[in-house]
């Protein structure tokens, strides 16, 4: 994104700002997204591999069960004709489909995530904000063959024995490490398949719509709101900026008595009021509403004030 966007006030600054990104939807609205951390990716992959292994074991058991069912106890496990041949075909084809189809099938679904990814709360998305296409999902998962399955089969072949065994094992290990660590060496945590497919993996978000922050400040039908007895002068409200307003919002939303008392006391001290007691919630709601009304009014004129240390700024400067 261009440099000017970096100062837009709506840009999120989460706990790990290195993973914050902006994605522009086709409608031209920029949305905050968070890249999935490398640990989450690794955990999801591990889960998926375990699941694949479980399904593969199930397929093997099913094949053996079918063989015993159809052929009785005296099954010749080397025979390739008749019903036993069909079972072998079933085994080969389902294993191929499992290894290559598992990721593609689930990432094409509405959640764009395998079971492992769902469990850790991440999903695949198109990097440029366009539609995630079937081609992209296929591409990013074909590359997985080279990244993971091929070197693993290298290392597996070591057990089978043969020449150049040690070298193959080390080459396989080096290979896996190279691709596994690849996401750590680029800022978007892309693995090889993401580069080829134009995708990235981001965190799911699920936020609930909270209540109105200061409901008691509303005008009561009889005209006497519980907060009406608190009136603030312009000077009282000019001591804080948006950062303090949001801190106050968090305090009001969490509704902890001791936090309310502490904040009420420090605001009273700041604006030179005598801190009362017993009515902190109403006092804070009144102050919050008045402060927000004041800040939002200047906001509509394009002036924003970041926090109590800064002066009002004209937007776009």
């Amino acid at each position, binding site marked *: 994104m261009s440099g000017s966007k970096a100062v837009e006030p709506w840009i999120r600054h989460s706990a790990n700002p290195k993973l914050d990104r902006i994605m522009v939807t086709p409608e031209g*609205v920029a949305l905050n997204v968070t890249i999935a951390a490398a640990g989450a990716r690794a955990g999801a992959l591990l889960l998926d591999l375990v699941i694949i292994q479980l399904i593969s074991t199930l397929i093997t058991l099913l094949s053996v069960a079918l063989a015993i069912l159809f052929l009785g106890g005296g099954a010749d496990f080397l025979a390739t004709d008749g019903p036993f041949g*069909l079972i072998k075909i079933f085994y080969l084809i389902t294993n191929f489909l499992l290894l290559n189809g598992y990721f593609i099938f689930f990432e094409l679904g509405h959640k764009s995530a395998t079971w492992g990814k769902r469990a850790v709360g991440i999903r695949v998305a198109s990097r440029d904000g366009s539609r*995630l296409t079937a081609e992209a999902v296929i*591409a990013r998962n074909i590359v997985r063959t*080279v990244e993971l399955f091929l070197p693993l089969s290298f290392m597996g072949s070591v057990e089978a024995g043969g020449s150049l065994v040690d070298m193959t094992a080390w080459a396989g290990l080096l290979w896996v490490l190279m691709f596994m660590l690849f996401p750590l060496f680029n800022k978007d945590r892309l693995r090889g398949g993401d580069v080829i497919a134009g995708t990235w993996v981001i965190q799911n978000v*699920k936020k609930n719509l909270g209540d*109105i922050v200061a409901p008691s400040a509303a*005008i009561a039908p009889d005209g006497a709101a519980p907060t009406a007895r608190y009136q603030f002068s312009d000077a009282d409200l000019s001591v804080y900026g948006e950062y303090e307003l949001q801190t106050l919002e968090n305090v009001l939303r969490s509704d902890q008595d001791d936090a309310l008392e502490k904040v009420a006391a420090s605001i009273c001290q700041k604006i030179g009021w005598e801190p009362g007691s017993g009515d902190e919630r109403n006092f804070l709601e009144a102050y919050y509403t008045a402060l927000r009304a004041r800040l939002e009014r200047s*906001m509509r004129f394009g002036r924003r004030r970041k926090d109590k240390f800064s002066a009002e700024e004209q937007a776009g400067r």
Partner: protein
Amino acid sequence: MSSDQALNAAVLRSDRFRLEREPDWIRLEEIVTKMEKGKARRLSDDDVLALPTLYRTLLSSLSIARENSLDAGLIDYLEGLALRAYFMVYGTQTSFSRWMGSFFGGGWSRAVRAIQFDIWVALAVMIAGAVIGYILVAGDSDWFYALVPGNFMDARVPGASEEALRGTLFGAQDEGGLAVFAAFLFSNNAQVALLAFALGFAFAVPSILLLIHNMALLGAMLWVFAQRGLTVDFVGWLSIHGTTELFAILLAGAAGIHVGRSIAFPGAKSHLKAASDAGKRAALVMAGVIVMLICAGLLEGFGRQLINNTAARFGVGGGMLLLWLVYFIGFGRERRGPDA
């Protein structure tokens, strides 16, 4: 207090803004939640039709809220809901059958034509590989043992008699095993093809090496049969499935080269953009390669062992080749991509 009363009572303009639009947001959230849980089919027609509108309304609400409201919790909620709705509206919505339709109806042949240059490169590489294999073994037959892995050798080694070699070409194998053999060959060849594509990631060099190695093996084998005057029979034996299988490997290698070339020489685009454009095009080709390999596996498992006559083998192999060429060159030309 009813919602109308709440609206009138709200002191802040931004709270009134929120109360006015809240019902739409909540409806959108319900639709999105249902879709995320895979219950999209249970949505009413009204909901399905309303989704895009509600989504765009939400985006505009978000833009307004960012400029007018300092309610951080509200903006967080809108932001999160917008992202979730975005994924539903712009999700991978093509159903599998629709995607297959557009794929066979021209998407695949268009993708193949788009990587034409790379196909010629891959073809040149493959021919060179076969020639190298042939020349190496012709010069010193010990090369054969270096090029061909042990499990292919059995009777097919330098110095084998004509009868022994002829036996491998026309020998009646246990017919019951053919289907299993076909399935095995398919999953084996498919892995090789996927590899040829995926290795393109490393600037295409490994893809080219893989193609050369596989074709050198073929060239070496050809020499063995040529020594006993069985060239035509060997080519016939190979062509029945080989035209399809080698074509598939050619396309896979070309797809790999296409990706590698785009990463190395992205032209006016950024490296990442060039890589992902090429990758998506190549992935379409690769999906088709898998289809071709299924055909090749069936031809190899059944056709080759059941048809024991060189002329008929050439006929089937040539017919398949013609079929693929007609499809790739002629199909899906006029229509623009339905989802492009």
